[in-house]
C-alpha cells in the first residue's frame, strides 16, 4: 500500500492552485479529502506525477447564505454538510444523504466537492445535488464558469470539470419547507449504495404539488426519475398513489450488475426505494 512517488503542492489560494495546475501539465491530480484518491494511489490504480492539495485553501470551506440559495465550499466535509444549520433548514436532503456516507472517519475527512468531482455512480452526494438542481462553480485559467447539475455528471467517474479547473463552490437553491428523505440500500453499514433514492416533495393540502427525485447507482451517472416526478405532480398524498408513481422509477435507467445484484434487481429496488423515500419525504 505504498503509492508511486509524486510531487506535492499545497497552495493556499485558489489563484495559486490554478497556477500550480497550469504549470503541472497533464499528469496531475487534485486532492480534496483524499478518501477516494489516496486509496487508488496506494493500490497504484492511479499514479499521478503531481498532487495538488486543496486542504489549505480556507476560502473553499464552509456554507454561506446566498439569498435564494446556499453557497457551499467544495472542501466542506460530509460531516459539516450533515450538521450545518443552514443546510438542515433549507436543503435537509443534503444533510440526510451526507449522514449516510461511509463511516464517521470518512465523513470527517471526505469533502462534498471531492465526492462530486470523483462522481462515483454509487456515491451518495451526486443524486441529491442533481435532484436539487444545484449549480457548480468552476475556477479555471479563463476565469469562473457555471455548470448546471444536469450537465455536470457526464459519465462513469467523469464530470464537466476540465483539466486545469477546480470546483470551488456548489450553489444549491433553498427548498425551505419541502419534505425530503434519502433512502439508501446497502448490505453492511459502511458500504457504497447498492441503490439509493433522494426525494424532495412539496405538499399542498392533501396533494403532492411538486417532487424531485434523484437516483444513485442506477446508471454511470446519477439520474433524475423524471417519470416519477411527473406522475407525482398533482397526485393525492396517499401510499397507493405514491406506489403507482414509483413504478416508473427505473425508466431510462441503465444500472450495472455486480456482486450486490444484477440490473433487474436494481431496477426493482429503485421502485421499492422510491416509494419508501417519497412516503418518508411526504411524512406519510
Amino acid at each position, binding site marked *: *500500500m*505504498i503509492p*508511486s512517488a509524486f510531487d506535492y503542492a499545497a497552495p493556499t489560494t485558489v489563484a495559486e492552485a490554478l497556477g500550480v495546475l497550469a504549470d503541472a501539465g497533464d499528469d496531475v491530480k487534485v486532492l480534496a479529502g483524499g478518501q477516494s484518491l489516496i486509496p487508488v494511489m496506494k493500490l497504484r490504480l492511479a499514479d499521478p506525477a503531481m498532487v495538488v492539495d486543496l486542504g489549505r485553501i480556507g476560502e473553499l470551506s464552509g456554507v454561506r447564505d446566498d439569498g435564494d440559495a446556499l453557497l457551499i465550499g467544495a472542501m466542506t466535509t460530509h460531516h459539516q454538510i450533515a450538521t450545518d444549520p443552514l443546510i438542515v433548514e433549507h436543503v435537509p436532503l443534503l444533510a440526510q444523504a451526507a449522514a449516510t456516507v461511509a463511516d464517521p472517519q470518512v465523513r470527517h475527512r471526505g469533502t462534498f466537492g471531492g465526492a462530486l468531482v470523483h462522481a462515483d455512480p454509487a456515491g451518495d452526494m451526486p443524486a441529491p445535488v442533481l435532484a436539487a438542481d444545484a449549480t457548480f462553480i468552476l475556477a479555471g485559467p479563463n476565469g469562473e464558469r457555471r455548470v448546471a447539475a444536469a450537465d455536470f455528471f457526464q459519465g462513469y467517474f467523469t464530470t464537466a470539470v476540465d483539466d486545469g479547473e477546480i470546483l470551488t463552490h456548489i450553489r444549491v437553491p433553498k427548498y425551505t419547507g419541502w419534505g425530503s428523505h434519502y433512502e439508501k*440500500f446497502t*448490505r*453492511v*453499514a459502511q458500504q457504497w449504495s447498492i441503490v439509493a433514492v433522494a426525494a424532495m416533495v412539496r405538499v399542498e393540502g392533501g396533494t403532492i404539488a411538486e417532487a424531485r427525485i434523484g437516483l444513485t447507482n442506477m446508471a454511470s451517472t446519477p439520474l433524475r426519475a423524471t417519470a416519477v416526478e411527473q406522475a407525482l405532480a398533482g397526485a393525492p398524498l396517499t401510499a397507493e398513489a405514491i406506489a403507482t408513481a414509483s413504478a416508473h422509477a427505473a425508466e431510462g435507467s441503465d444500472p450495472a450488475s455486480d456482486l*450486490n*445484484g444484477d440490473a433487474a434487481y436494481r431496477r*426493482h429496488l429503485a421502485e421499492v426505494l422510491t416509494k419508501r423515500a417519497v412516503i418518508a419525504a411526504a411524512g406519510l
Partner: protein
Amino acid sequence: MTITEVGRARLRKEDAHLITGRSRYTDNMTLPGMLHLAMVRSPFAHAKITSIDTSAAKSSPGVVTVLTGADVAAEQGSLPNVWPVTAEQKAPAFPSIAVDEVAFAGEVVACIVARSAAAARDAVELVDVSYDELPVVLDLEEAFTDKVLAHSNLDSNLSATWVFDSGEAGTGKPIAEALANAEVLIERTFYQQRLIPAFMEPRSIVVDPTSEQITMWSSTQIPHILRLILALTLGLPESKLRVIAPDVGGGFGGKLTVIPEEFITLMAARRVGKPCKYTETRSESLQSGHHGRAQVQKVKLAATKDGIVTGLDIQLLADMGAYLGIIGSGVPILGAFMYNAIYKFPAYRLECNNLFTNKAWTGAYRGAGRPEATFAIERLMDELAVELGMDPLEVRKKNWINNEEFPFTTVTGLEYDSGNYEAATAKAVELFGYDELRAEQVRRREANDPVQLGIGISTFTEMCGLAPSRVLGALSYAAGGWEHAQVRVLPTGNVEVVTGTSPHGQGHETAWSQLVADRLGVPFENIEVLHGDTQVSQRGLDTYGSRSLTVGGMAVLAAADKVIEKAKVLAAHLMEASEEDIEFTDGKFSVKGTDQSTAFGEVAFAAFSAHNLPEGFEPNLDSDATFDPQSFSFPHGTHLAAMEVDTETGQVTIRKYVCVDDVGVVVNPLIVEGQVHGGLAQGIAQALYEEAVHDDAGTLVTGSFVDYLVPGAPDLPHFTTARTETPSTTNQLGAKGVGEAGTIASTPAIVNGVLDAVRHLGVKDIKMPCTPSRVWAALEEAKTTGGVQ
C-alpha cells in the same frame, strides 16, 4: 484453596497496551540495517512461467537483490503438509517461489529485497514475467470430473478420498440398510462458500540472521510448529532458529499455517546477511493468505415417519485450492466426526474427496470442518421437521442424547463425556420467547406482511481440546496434541508462567494468571505470563481448535501443583515439621494442628537464598508439566435466531438472537462473552455477508473490503447470551473450550431462520451468503415455479 479468581470477570491484562497502541506487532519491529521485501505475484490462476527478466528491477534505486524461484530452487524445498489423510494422498510440490508453473492468482514468482519498503514496491513493477496461460479449474464439481487439471504434472485433481463407515468401523450399523429402509429420505446439496479469515493484523515477518542463532518474528498462531517446519524444510538445525510471535492481531486459523513468505524472508535474510522485513498489504492478505470452508456437501438423511433419524450419508467435495496447506487436507476430517452432532444416529457414512483447484490453498478457519458439519446437520433437522410437519425443536428432542445417557459413545466412536441439551434448550426457549414469536410468525403470514418472520434453530456441539496425541496419531497427523507449561517462582514470590500456547487475542495472560493465582495464592497482579517465543517457552504446540484452556491450562495447573509439592518439602524443613503435616491454603504453608505457618513468598526466598535447604533439595521451586488430554471436550448449546425478511427487497435482519452455551466451567466470564460475541459475528458473516468470489479466469473479485463484506458492529444485533454449566469430566477444571462455539452454532441458526420466514412462499433453499439479491431472486423464482433450490 480458596477460589477467588476462577469465575471472576476480570478485565484483560493485555488490553491496556493493545488499546493504547503500545503494542509489539511484528511490523513495529525495526532493526539496524533492516531491508524490506516486496513480492511479485502471478496475475494468472494457472500458467507456465516462460521467462523472468529481473534486470530492470535489480538496477532500480535502493534495490539490493531480486530472488526468483530458479534462484532458490536448490534450497527452498516444498511447504509441507503434515496431515496425509490417506496413505495414497497426492500433493503437488509447494515451492515458496514458483519455479516454472503457477497454480493460483497471487502466487509469488519473485521477491524484491530493497533498502526501503517503497523502493521494494516500486521495483515490483519492473520485473518482467512472461507467462503461457493454461486452462483453469475453479468449480469443485468440475474439478471432480478431471476435465481440466489444476496442475499440469498431476493426472487428477483428486488428492485423497477418505471414508468413514460406521458399519465397517463397528461403531454403528451399515448406511446402505438405513437408506434402503428409510420411511423418509431427505436429500440435499449444501454449498459452503469459500471464506477469507480476514484477521485484523496482516501477516508480517522479520528475520534477523546476524547472530549465531537466526531469529524470526512472525505474526503466527504457531511459533513452535513454525520453527520445526522451517528447520525440517530448509535443512537448518532447529537449535539455530528462534521464532517469536509477539503481539499477534487475530488469526482465526488463518495464521495456523506456514506461509511461503516466511520461507522467502528467511532465505532472503540469510542470503543478504541482513535483517529483512516483509509485511503484506491487505490486498495480498485477502488474495494469497489461505482461505477456509469451500465444500460441496451432498447429504442424505434417512428417518422414520415419527421423526427418528436412522442414518446419515455424506459425500463431500472439499476444495484444497492449488496446494495442500499444512493441515488443509485434515480440515474436512475434523468435521467428519461431528455430522452426527448431538444425536443418536445408528448409521453413518462420510466420504470426503479432497480436490485441487486453481485458487488459493485452504486451511483452518474458525471451527475448521465443524461449522460445515454443523450447518449440514442442523439444516437437515429443519428439513426433516418440515417434511414431517413437526416443530423443529421437537425433531431434535426426539433424536438427541438425553442427559442421563452420558457418557455416550457416538456413531463415529467418540465418547461424549457430558452434556445437558435439555437444560440449554429450555433456557434458550425461555429467553427467546419461542411461543410468542411463533404466534407472531403466524399472524404475519396470515396478514401477508411484507416483512416475514422466521425462527432459526441450531442445537450444536463440537469437539475441542485438540487433542489426545494417540487420536491424532490414529488420524495420521504428524504431531501430538499435548501442551507444556512451566511455573517459575521468583525470589520475591512473584511468579512467571511460561505457556506453550500462543495467544493472539484470546487473553491467556489474564486467564492463566487467574488459574495460578487461585492455585498458589499469589496475587493476580504478581503473575506474569510468558509466551510466543521459542527461547522462552521451549516446548509447545500453540493455539488453535479451542485447545488452549482445556490442554494448555491443564498443563499450567499441573506445573503449579508440582511447585506446591516442591515447596511443601522446603516448608516442612523450615518449620521443622513432617512433610505429611504440611497444609497449603491461600498462599500459606501451615503445620496441621498448630498455629505455625510460613508464607509462599518466604518459602520462595528460602529456595533462592539456599542457606537452609533439606538434603538434596535443588535451590528453586520451578516446575514443568506437559499435559496430554485423554479425550476431547464437547461444548454444546442452543442458539435461536428470529429473522426478519423484507420480501420487497430481500433484506434480512436479525431481530433477536439468543444463545445458551455450555462451555463447562468458566475461568473468566468476560473473556467467554467476548469469544461468543466474536464467534457469532463470524458465523453470521458466513450466513449473510462473506464470500470469496473469483471471476472465470480465477482472479479474486472480492479482493478488498469494499467487496469482501466483513460485518461491523452496526450490522449486528444485540446478542442475548447465557450459559448452562455442565462440567467436562475429561480435565480437572471441567472446562470445554469456547473459541469456536459461536461461529459453529450461528451459521445454521441464521439460515434456518431466513428459510423459515419464506418457506411458506415456496422458497426451498438459498445459497450462502443469503444476500438481499439472492433472497429476492429466490422469492421471485418461487412465484413462477413454486420453488427454487
